[in-house]
Each structure stands twice: as C-alpha cells, then as structure tokens.
C-alpha cells in the first residue's frame, strides 16, 4: 500500500522495525506483525479492556491506539511480565487464587493491575476496585481477580521492602 509508514516499536525492550498502514491498531500490530499474540482483542472499541498493554507505564487499550502513535514509546505486554521461568508475582497470584478461567481477559487484567500497582504499591481497596472495574471478565465473577491482585500487591511490597 502506498501510504504505509516505517516505524520502530519497542516492545518488552525489543525493537521491532515495521512497515504499517497508519490505520492499523496497536493491538493488531502487536499480534500480527510482532507475533505477540498474548494481547487479545475482545471488543475493538475500548470497552472490555482485554487488549490492555502498558505504554510508558500507563495502561492503554491497544485497540484504540494506532501502531504509528506508539512508535517511540515503551510498550509492555503480558509476554514481558515473567523473568524467564520466574513468574511475576501477579501471574503467580492469578494461578494461586483461581483468578482466571478461560484466560482471554487475563493478559489485559494483568497489565492493568501491573500498571496500577507499580504506580501505587499501597493502593487502597476502593481505588483498586475502581481500577479493576475498567476491564470485563465473563468467567470469574471478579472476586478472585481482586483477591489475586491484593495478594500480589502484598508480595510486591514485601519484595521492595526486602531490597
């Protein structure tokens, strides 16, 4: 296509030189051109939050952002959460607390929660519920997600304190 643009996306610390149409969403680009299919598209109009990624540490609906807008920014996706074999405390807490069933919304919730806990490790219950209300889950009824994020928050605080 004549109107394609050359960009470089930085995702999880890796540079991806890409040629994209300006209209291509960040979600589709991550999935189809970077091969990072962990970010799922659930509604493509910014309501469900399944496609949440971090752009410069802020949670963003990647279905509502064009890839060309994300060039030059630091993008983090679910694939970048674990440190090799070692799971991020949130990932482990989701497993331990049965905070996922079908798993489709899970990457979005993980990135949403990572963004919130990194910004405010001491986040209160009300604020946490408020943040987690931005994404939709159809399987769990949410309670175990709240439990998991609280458990992970405790552990992340303990890790920080132990450093």
């Amino acid at each position, binding site marked *: 296509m004549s109107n394609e643009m050359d960009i470089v996306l930085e995702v999880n610390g890796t540079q991806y030189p890409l040629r994209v149409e300006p209209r291509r969403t960040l979600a589709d680009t991550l999935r189809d051109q970077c091969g990072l299919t962990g970010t799922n598209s659930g509604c493509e*109009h910014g309501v469900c939050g399944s496609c949440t990624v971090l752009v410069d540490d802020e949670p963003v609906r990647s279905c509502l952002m064009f890839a060309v807008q994300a060039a030059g920014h630091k993008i983090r996706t679910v694939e970048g959460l674990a440190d090799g074999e070692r799971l991020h405390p949130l990932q482990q807490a989701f497993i331990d607390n049965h905070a996922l*069933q079908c798993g*489709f919304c899970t990457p979005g919730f993980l990135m949403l929660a990572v963004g919130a806990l990194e910004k405010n490790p001491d986040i209160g219950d009300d604020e946490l519920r408020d943040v987690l209300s931005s994404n939709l889950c159809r399987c769990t009824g949410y309670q175990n997600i709240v439990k998991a994020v609280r458990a992970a928050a405790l552990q992340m605080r303990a890790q920080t304190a132990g450093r």
Partner: protein
Amino acid sequence: MDTPDSPTPPKKRWIGQSVTRLEDLPLVTGRGRYAAAVSFPHQLHMRVVRSNHAHGRIVSIDTSAARAVPGFVAVWTGADVAHIPPIEFRPTKIQGLEHYRQTVLAQETVRYVGEPVAVVFARDPYQAEDAADLVEVEIEPLPVITSALDAPGEFTPGRNTEPVIVRKEFGDLRAAFQSAHAVIELDLRIGRHSGVPMETRGAIGRYDATRDVLELHGATKRPHPNRDMLARLLGRSPSSVHLYECHIGGGFGVRGEIYPEDVLVCAAALKLGRPVKWIEDRRENLMACNHSREQIHHVRVAIDADGRVLALDDEFFHDQGAYVRTHGARVADGTASTLLGPYLVPAFRATGHFRLTNKTPAATYRSPGRFESTFVHERVMDAIAAKLGLDPLEVRRRNLIPHAQMPYERPMTVSGTPVVLDSGDYAAHLDKVLARVGWDALRADVTRRRVAGETVGLGLAYFLEKSGQGPVEGVRLTVDVTGAVELVTGAASLGQGMETVLAQICADGLGVDYRQVRVVHGRTDLIDYGFGANAARVTIMTGSATHIAALKLREKALEVAAADFLEATPEMLDIIDGRIVRKDRPDAPSVTLAQIAKELTPASAVAKGRTPGLTTDGVFECKHESFPFGAHVAVVKVDRATGGVKVERYLASFDIGVAVNPMLVKGQIAGSMVQGLGGALFEEFVYDASGTPLAVTFADYMLPNLSVVPDLEILLTEDAPSPLNPLGLKGGGESGITAVGAVIASAIEDALGLPGVVTQLPVTPQRLKAILNRAR
C-alpha cells in the same frame, strides 16, 4: 490388615483438593492460543456482509466495487453456496422444525439484522473489511415480527412462524382449579440476553491435499457431532474432516455450535485452495451469535388454604428469533419440563408457543430454560406468600419435594428422557442456607433499615439444576515410557478447568500426581467419539469414564508388576506417585509405571502373550441426568431517584454431591452468579419496532463489571451424592446462575414493599422507575 480379593480401591488423595489448575501457565504468560492466534501460510481472510434489514427480499447484490479493492480474492453470495444444505439442529422427538433452518448465506429472503448475505475473501483482514463494506445489497423490506406475542405470520407459503407448540401435562388440572382455595395469575417476562463470551467466535478452515483432510480450527463444545454435521453438509466422509480445538475464550452455551461462518470457511478452503480465517468482531457477535432466554409466561396457579400448590398451568411464548438452529426447540422444551423446580405439584400443564420472529436466532445459554423457569416458579412462591400473608420461606417449605420421596419421578420427560430427581434433602438444605446467612438477624436488620426510611429488601430463591447429559462418554488413557500419562477425551474445554478435574480423578484412580496427567481434548482425529462439553456433563460423564479407565489401567499395571517384577500378587500391591510398591513392605523393591510401560512395548508384550501398551479405554454410560440444587439469598438497596439497584449482600448455595476441586466449583458458582446478575439487572438485546438491534456494542449491551458485583458468599455442600455414577458426581457448570433473576426480583419487591410488581427481567433503572411512578 485385611486381604481383599481384588486390589484395594485407591485412596482419595486428589479428589476433593483445591489444587491449582493445569491450564493456567500458558494463559498467564501470554501463550494462550485462541482462534485469532491460529494462522497458516498463505491464508485468506473472510469478512461477512450482513443484512441491515430484519425482514426483506433480496433484490440485488452488487459486488463490482468490492472486486476492485486491493487484496480482493473472491466474493460469494447465496447462489455460490446454494448447494450446501441448511444448518442442522440437534434432533429431538419434536417434529416439523426442519423447514425453518438457516442456510449459510441468505438465498432470497433475509430474516434478521445480521444475517449473512455475502462473504468476501481477501489477503488481509483489513482489505476484506474494506471490500465487504463496498458490497451493495438492495433489500425490499417485508413486514417484521418483533414479539412472540404477535400473531404468527407467514414464514414461507403454507408455513407460519409457530412451527410447534410444546406441551406437557399430567394430573387432573380441572379438578385442582375447581377445588382451589385461591387462584393466582402472573404475567412474567424474561429478557433476551446471552452468553457473550469475551472471545468472539473464530474459525479457520484448511484443506490438506496430502491427506485429503478438511480441517476446522477453532472448534469446541461438541467437536465430534459438529464434525459429523460438517461432513454431511459438505458431502465428505466424517473421517476426512478433522476438528481442532484451541484455547477458547468462554463458551456459556453459545460458542462451539456450528454457525454459517464455520461452514463457509470450510467450503471456501476447499473451493479456493487456501486456508481461510474468519474472526468475528464484537458488533457481529452481538447480532449473529446465538441469543437466548426471551420468553413471556402467563401462569395460573391453584393453591389450597395452606399455600400448597394444587396445580400449575403455564402458557408461554418463546421468542426463537429468525431460524431454528443448533438446538431445535430444546430450550422451550426444557423450560416446560422444569417449571415445577424442586416442588411437589400434583397437576401441571405447560403450553409453550415456539415462535419465530425477525431477530437473531436463539438457542442455549448457561442454565437454558431453568433461568427462565426458576424465575417463574419463584415468582409464584412469593405471590402465594403475599396472597395468603404467609412467610415466603414457609410457602417454599410446604411445597418442596420431601426427602422421603427420593428418588422422585416426575411424570414427564426432558429432552426425551424421564425426569427422575436422583437425590437431595431440599428442606434440610434450605435450613443450612438460612443458618449460614443468619436469616432471622438479616430479616430483622432489613426491617429496621426500612422503618428508618431505606429502600432495602431481602429475598430468597430456591432452584433445581440438572447435569450430566448422557448417553455415553469415553476416554483413552496411556502411560508412556517416561511415566507421563496422556488422557484423550472427546470432550471440550471452554475454560471451566476440565483438564485439572479429569487429571485429579485420573490421579486418584491410577496412583499418580495429577500434574503427571496431560489431558488432550477437542481433537476428532485422536479419539473416535465424544459428546462434548455442555449441560454440565464433563465432570460426570468424562470424569466417570476417566475413573473407570484409571482403575482398568491400574489393574493392568499391577498384574505386570506382580508377575514380572515383584514376585507378588496384585492384591499385595499399591501405586503411589507412579511407583508400584508392596503394601506390607513399602521399603521393598518397587517398580515404576514407566518401567511397566517399557515392559509392555509391542515386542516385549507380545512375547509374553499380553496386549501391547500401558493403555486402555474407559467408557461410561448413563441415560439419566442428575439434579443438583441450591438457594440464593440477596439483600438489595434501591435508589428511588435513579431506579438503580445495588446488591449489598449475596449468598449462593449449591449441593454438588461430590466436589472434585472445590476451588473450581466455587469459581463456576461465582462466575455464573455474576452472569446471572447481568440477566437480572443489565443485559438485554433490545430491538426497535423495525427489528433493528439497539445493543450491538458493549456500550449498549451492559455486561456486569466489578463495580456492580457484591462480595459473594458461597455455601458449597456435598450432602447428596448422585447414585448414578461411581464417584457420586453432579455437575457444577451452571451452578450459580439459575436463581439470580428470581432472587433479585424477590429482593427488589421486598425493598419496595409492593408484592407482585416485579414481573420482568432485566430490572433496568427505567423499568424500576416505571414501577415506582405507578406506585405513587
């Protein structure tokens, strides 16, 4: 120590444990492989052109502009697929529905907004969408039917839009109404809503000429019956059609049925010689994936002076939408046959008008028919209490089927099989629920708050579920030469945790760690049959087959170990963590399952006259369903200014017989309860008078998010194991949704202090404001 004749039954080490799931690791690390992640080299992308009219005649379809779009490959209209028969539905004894089936593309007439009219194939999904947008479809509008209460119209010449009336009847209805102390009549409505999984549908068709095999990726729920249907529709042998399940982003009844798009990607893969991928978008999903629930009930109830039901007579109108697909009239049939719930009623009649309208076709959604029928029977119980000035709990107690009558046979059938309620002390369970929730104190507190001016209310609803649809299920269990266990089943995984649950059952039967078991599902090329994951059947049917297979494999392993390795008899041996040991001398020499598997490699096995392989099949047959049950309690607060409802407290109870993994069962209860809350308060597929759907985004179709969900209390009991299977299992897949509409209605009514005013779900703010305005 006793010496039994056969090996000691294995101890329960894994069943009953809330172990973490085998499924989770790929899903939390972004390695989930949902349909959109399945791609093949040189694949094409399909985009569906859908009708914008609820009913009309196709005048013309102009594809010339679409053909000019870069990347365009092909476009099909009805004429291109006229040779493909209409999509089948599950056969039942109800006849006459076959004329109302949907073709994969509309032929001459469109009957709902969203009906596939044409498909475009292109090299890129964006290009396919560009081209589809340019397909011009001219439709001459025809009159629309948007309510099942409307008089039936013409479907095709000579056939009207009421293909069947579902009828159930027993007892002397006339005598009961004549002798009644009082008769109660209610008009009740359940809104149109549905499963709406977070993953939209997806299907990838691929033809492999090297094997002459047609593949469908993205299959789930019922891979084998779907394989057979696809084979029939496309004129192939079933063995040359392979279905593959990937990760599935939720099912809830709607995902994994055969829809027009599944057939189209397969037909296109054959015709175009390239893999064809289709990923639904959310707007399509809300207007094209199965809807459910919408019914209107006119129920009459004859009661005696003590509030006992003498007879229940329900005429209802089931809005099937535009076509009969996937389930025939099963939801209407299931509604009719569950209208009495857990209650003892001597005379009964249900007359279910199964009517087609110009809306999206409907079929099953989690607790199909029971969410609806439970709303009806629980509204009836509350109405009896109001009529006679009795405590609603007391009315329920007087009508519950007594424990002494278990198993209780109802003189009717569900899905063609007799209804025999297998086990349960319903009244005792009610007592447990009341004790757990502290009913008397709660009642007093709500009353005190209401006196103080708050619009707060307390409700209770009782429900009967059903689970474990037969007829049969099987697994193949194999231990390989490293000791790893492979369990192959024809069932499917929709995210419910079936891999973990089957692994736990297998682990106990065989004597291994559940993490040693890899569960393979949704692969029609690896096992010959399977009836799928629906109707809360996997743990019961596949679980029982797993238990049987594990015991058989255990027996085989012990025989080989005893004869070839340990100089013992099988009765002297046990299997612990994959190692066969002597019960009496745990420190004596032992042998692993891996060594037994090596001993059974073909040459070695045959030399000793054995069947090769440490492998076996297990088959479980069960013609009758089992019936779990429970009750819900809710405290709600109504905002008189906005009509909003806040659920302050919620308890859901469920007796599952035996919980293989209580954490996962509670997960099913919690998730389905929140889905129920959606249908009770928020979710509704609304249509305007022209049949145009008004809820086609998540901004209009309101799924519950965390902000509206209360802290859910769960009371999981195991008091009534099922006598119908070896482990006493009942199903938990639909456990938490059944009574939500009923209990929310009850609690709102209690808050308002206006008996009988809540007659329609969902209780949206608009509807609640209308109730409040009328009450002024």
